[in-house]
């Protein structure tokens, strides 16, 4: 599961007030490079919740063999035009963090109820029990 997907994942268990963003408990991480598509990233950025991304990176970082790129604490990515002015290094770092880091084994934890979703072989299991629907 990449951080790009994690940025959009939410727990919809019945009775949860705010199931986003999910906290990450890491067991294994994988790192795989992919080509940077600058235009796609710029299109995507206004949708990305930057704070959630930074928090996720902080949770994944201690377990990575290669240190994850440093990202600024806050950044306003909601303005597509402003994003055009971002320098290439930032774009490259954002791409690395969103696309190239995979959580292979671990847990996703709902910040509200504490419900744990297991992640095995890069696939999170979001199947709800009967009483959670």
């Amino acid at each position, binding site marked *: *599961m*990449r951080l*790009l*997907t994690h940025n*959009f*994942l*939410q*727990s*919809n268990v019945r009775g949860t007030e705010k199931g*986003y963003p999910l906290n990450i408990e890491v067991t294994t991480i994988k790192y*795989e490079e*992919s*080509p940077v*598509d600058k*235009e*796609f990233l710029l*299109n*995507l950025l206004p*949708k990305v*919740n930057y704070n959630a991304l930074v928090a996720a990176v902080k949770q994944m970082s201690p377990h990575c063999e290669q240190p994850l790129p440093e990202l600024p604490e806050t950044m306003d990515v909601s303005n597509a035009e402003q994003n055009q002015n971002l320098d290439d290094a930032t774009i490259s770092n954002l791409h690395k963090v969103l*696309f*190239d880091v995979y959580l292979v084994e671990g847990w996703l934890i709902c910040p509200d109820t504490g419900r744990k979703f297991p992640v095995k*072989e*890069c*696939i*999170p*299991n*979001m*199947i*709800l029990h*009967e009483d959670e*629907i």
Partner: protein
Amino acid sequence: MSRPELTGHASLFYNEKEARKYDSSSRMVGIQREITERAIELLKLPSNRPSFILDVGCGSGLSGQVLEEHGHVWVGCDVSRDMLNMANERIERKREEAMGEGDSSEDDSDNDMNDNDSNNNDNKGGTTTEEEPSPGDLLHHDMGTGLPFRPASFDACISISALQWLCYSNTKEQIPKKRLTRFFSSLYQVLRRGARAVLQFYPESSEHAILISECAAKVGFAGGIVVDYPNSTKAKKHYLVLSFERSYKAPQGLTGLEGALLNEGRSSSGGVRVADKDPRRAAGKKSRGPPRKKKGGGKTKEWILHKKETQRKKGKDTRKDTKFTGRKRPMRF
């Protein structure tokens, strides 16, 4: 043959054995690719720009692969863990090919985008290594319980041959109407405004099709069902096309009529199409799937050569290709 949906839960039908059979059947792969291409066409995505797409019921990633070939980034979900494991295997195979380690020995080897500079027996023989786009993420999830994403996440949604599973209940608690409504209302939320969804499904009866459309309309979607080749039992396909625009009208389905309109390009305006035999070719895209048979039952030479190649890869004894392969035979009388 009875419908798979009647045998039980989707994750029970698509167990490991069935999943493996499904993924390696070249016929299945071909059909799913065609359906996906048609669904992408119906989506009318902004051209030349990658979109963030949700693939519901992604299975072993056949449709996801087509999305990747079009340059989109996708997230897939499926209720069968075994199918998702096949998808993982497929991603691993592609990665090994890209690194030039493996032999491209699978049936669905229409990875034309993959040029290896490997020095083993690669029949592409390119000299540059094309970088692979990042594969789609997979989720193990039951779509009938909603979609686990925050609002306005996706630019589009596709679903290939999956939606009909919601029409059957496998436990006492599962009520089809409730699951369908839950799914559609969740879909409504996770798509961003202006997005579109195309869901290909196999309705058992018109009641099912009506039930599905009603649930979609109830949550606020506009759109309709596009039926391709309505007169053929085999080729008939239903696509539920959904949009947020109240004024949206679903386009006409394909009828497969041949004629003078064959060579005309697609109309780009309203999506109303009369006779467009091969949408891929008409759109000017490089034909990425295996060669087609002639409509009417004849076999083309390319189709024969491709089929022989497939058989060789399966390890079967196949005669060598010569200048006589697939030659035009004289008329019977």
